[in-house]
């Protein structure tokens, strides 16, 4: 038995039946990380021994009959923009290369309270800006299906680590597709919850009105499990919402009869890869076979989402990233002759080119004289996008689209063309713009064996609907049984 092939719910079962100890599980993952990290480059920080010590503690406590809960001793990987007390949180940036947060993010408090063991911090595009993990200051993470391809981004480290079996599950963050797109590229399951379902306290902000933390997992059941742990109103985040305790595994009914699925034609038009389109069409047929009602719909304003997204996200980022000024923490230039130079040099040296590009863009769209034409207009379009989704959800339970117009692309293929890179987000950004939940699950592979992702979008706080729709499809198609990363060189 390869422990690292098991899902979390399988691990839980084996711990419960005393077939596995936490130590055995963590050791297996530590070994796998040691084996694969050189090729995959998924981690910024590996905890190794520290994690193993924690596993031993859990085993001892459990042996002594302590009630530790159903997740105790299960390991996890955490995206490196989620603050972890005493462990570096770098955002894959030189700016925070040596930054150790003095506090735990709310999601980390929840994870730690369950005695879940953090294996390490996962690589990402710097400050979550990018779709390929090539914008990390430290390393470029590779796609486990083909090491010459990107894993997607910005949660590329999280998705690659889960796909490669280096962590059983991981936390990612999604501002415009940063959980779903890498999940799609790496053949795993990524869920972006409804805005407000998960506390953002302790998530280093990129775009505050769009950011959400969510699970990246091997299957849909694990996604529901991790969602159970991380959701809940947080007094420290006034944008988080009180929904009561929901067990998201309860909705996994393996039944979509009568489920109304809308397929927006705009997401299947120009720019979409033929094989991706065919794979999606097959998935649509499968849903029909399973008894769902699938209809083509139009989401006309969605085409403005990408422009809207880049204006709003960059505007917020330009302000959010102001605090990295070299004064209290983070990178400070060694030599400067006055305050202005301290700022200029520290930020010039500390930020990478993509981050700078977005700060400049965001500063521009908020500047007096341009605010109305860009930021204000973008907010108006945002309202229209929300309204159009609201209208669609009056008729449909789920909206089905590809997660990305293409499969994973070659490393370096788009890194010199920001605009082309931004187009990779075209299917996912409108979900953030509208604050909706979206899940990406693998629906097939292309002729090269690269995974293709399907996105299911739900109405606000209707995670249960899309989780069930994803679960039912997964049970039918059994992607994991048929496709494994090949670490092709």
């Amino acid at each position, binding site marked *: 038995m390869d422990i690292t092939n098991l899902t979390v719910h399988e691990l839980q079962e084996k711990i419960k039946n005393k077939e596995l100890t936490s130590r055995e599980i963590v050791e297996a993952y530590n070994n796998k990380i040691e084996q694969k990290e050189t090729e995959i480059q998924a981690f910024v920080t590996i905890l190794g021994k520290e994690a193993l010590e924690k596993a031993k503690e859990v085993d001892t406590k459990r042996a002594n009959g302590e009630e530790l809960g159903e997740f105790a001793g299960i390991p996890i990987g955490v995206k490196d923009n989620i603050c972890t007390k005493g462990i570096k949180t770098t*955002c894959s940036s030189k700016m925070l290369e040596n930054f150790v947060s003095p*506090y735990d993010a709310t999601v980390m408090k929840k994870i730690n309270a369950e005695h879940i063991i953090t294996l390490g911090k996962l690589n990402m595009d710097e400050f979550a800006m990018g779709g390929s993990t090539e914008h990390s200051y430290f390393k470029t993470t590779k796609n486990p299906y083909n090491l010459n391809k990107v894993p997607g981004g910005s949660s590329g480290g999280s998705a690659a680590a889960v796909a490669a079996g280096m962590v059983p599950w991981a936390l990612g963050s999604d501002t415009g597709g940063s959980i779903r797109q890498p999940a799609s590229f790496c053949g795993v399951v990524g869920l972006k919850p409804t805005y407000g379902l998960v506390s953002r306290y302790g998530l280093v902000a990129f775009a*505050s009105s769009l950011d959400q933390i969510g699970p990246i997992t091997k299957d849909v059941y694990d996604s529901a499990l991790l969602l159970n742990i991380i959701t809940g109103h947080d007094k420290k985040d006034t944008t988080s919402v009180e929904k009561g305790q929901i067990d998201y595994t309860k909705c996994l009914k393996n039944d979509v009869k009568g489920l109304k699925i809308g397929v927006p034609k705009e997401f299947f038009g120009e720019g979409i890869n033929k094989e991706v389109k065919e794979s999606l069409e097959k998935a649509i047929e499968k849903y029909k076979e399973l008894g769902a009602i699938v209809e083509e719909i139009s989401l006309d304003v969605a085409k403005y989402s990408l422009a809207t997204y880049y204006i709003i996200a960059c505007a917020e980022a330009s302000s959010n990233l*102001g*605090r990295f*000024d070299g004064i209290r923490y983070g990178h400070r230039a060694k030599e400067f002759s006055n305050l202005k130079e301290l*700022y200029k040099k520290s930020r010039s040296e500390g930020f990478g080119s993509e981050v700078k590009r977005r700060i400049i863009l965001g500063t521009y769209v*908020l500047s007096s004289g341009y605010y109305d034409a860009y930021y204000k207009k973008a907010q108006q379009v945002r309202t229209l996008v929300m309204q159009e989704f609201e209208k669609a959800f009056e008729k449909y339970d789920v909206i089905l689209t590809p997660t990305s117009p293409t499969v994973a692309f070659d490393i370096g293929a788009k890194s010199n063309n920001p605009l082309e890179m931004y187009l990779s987000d075209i299917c996912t950004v409108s979900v953030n713009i509208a604050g909706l939940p979206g899940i990406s699950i693998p629906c097939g592979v292309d002729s090269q064996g690269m995974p293709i992702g399907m996105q299911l979008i739900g109405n606000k706080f209707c995670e249960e609907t899309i989780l069930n729709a994803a679960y039912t499809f997964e049970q039918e198609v059994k992607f994991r049984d048929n496709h494994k990363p090949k670490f092709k060189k």
Partner: protein
Amino acid sequence: MPREDYEAVMGLEVHAELSTKTKIFCSCKTTFGAEPNTQVCPICMAMPGTLPVLNEKVVEYAVKAGLATDCEIARDSKNDRKNYFYPDLPKSYQISQYDKPLCEHGKIEIETSNGKKVIGITRIHIEEDAGKLNHDEFSGGSLVDLNRAGVPLIEIVSEPDLRTTEEVEAYLKKLKSILEYIEVSDCKMQEGSFRADVNVSVRKKGDSNFGTRTEMKNMNSFRSITRAIEYEIDRQIDVIENGGKVDQETLRWDEVSGKTFSMRDKEDAKDYRYFPDPDLVAIKLSEEYIENIKNSLPELPESRKQRYLEEYKLSEKDANIITSSKYLSDLFEKAIEICNNPKAVNNWIISDISRILNEKEMEPNEIPFKFNELGKLVILIDKGTISSSIGKKILEELFENPKDPEQIIKEKGWIQISDETQIKEVVKKILEANPQSIADYKAGKDRALGFLVGQAMKETKGKANPKMLNQMFLEELKK
């Protein structure tokens, strides 16, 4: 053109620190004067990933201030980010309010030597204070203290309705007293919890357009505000008289040199890139919420003044002085409860207490003694235990070393002489020494009596009962 032909136009931006127990977006304390960086947390230090949570008391206090100044209260308001870099601003943006302030369109009535005038309040909004930079003597650099970062402020913006320094001072005093009455700010200018930026421009009398304005910062007393405005008005008139143009700029008042200095060059013209803070939800206030605050407002200075005029028959001038400070007004009312002599208490406050405050450059809230001491002082005089001149000495003593006036009298041996034989002796002695005064009195000069009484008081070091002295001198003179 002579100076008298110019008219100055002033508008004020007052920042008042709210006296909430905790900061506006985190639960750190707001106590003044703590060791640097001891009242901070990850939120007010702007550690990555932290989020603000709006302190509801701040909204309540701002709404109180709005209602007390006749403002309209917004049912739908929000927080905005004002972006700029400075080491005392840890997030590199200040959370403030831009286009939807909590309160708008208010007014305050002031009174000057020219009579009453209404000054418009443009808006009142909530925002967070910045930290402080301290010069480090060892390194020659600056050290950041973030204790003040996140202390709640309201900014009260007036209309450009003010024309003289007298009006400015009256406006500031009135505003300060209102904020003190509703207990939303302690308004201590010397601790920076009540600060004013002044916009000044000049124009020819009769012009309907405003001149170019400058904004002055860094004045921390009424005196420096007045000085700064007078200086700036003169400077602007000089510029115009010499054929120049006033530049729109921000000036820093330097108390030592008595001059204003430009704070930044024009190349640095600020674009704060305001936008709604996405970390905070909109502020929605219900009618019921506003109504409840309205009902909880204490009596305001204007209404107290009316009551003093009617109930205690104070003069308008006295009532103004007493109600200008909540502390004085409370002192007045509570002392009356003890001694039941409003007229006497009024006199003490208006004359001696005000004089001593002036001499010592103290604020009313710094008066070291309490209402019961003042009340007792009045009772002791009314009962004839001491004379009013001894009373004055006791008051001085109360400022130095506050304790029960009776205790002071005992310790100092200041009990009034009301013994008839003792007084008679003094009267005889004084009359013998001043035959001229007797002659004057008999010749019809009543003033001579006052002189004699004065001499007798001097002789007894103020301890003789003045009523008895008066009576006895009259009796003797009539003989």
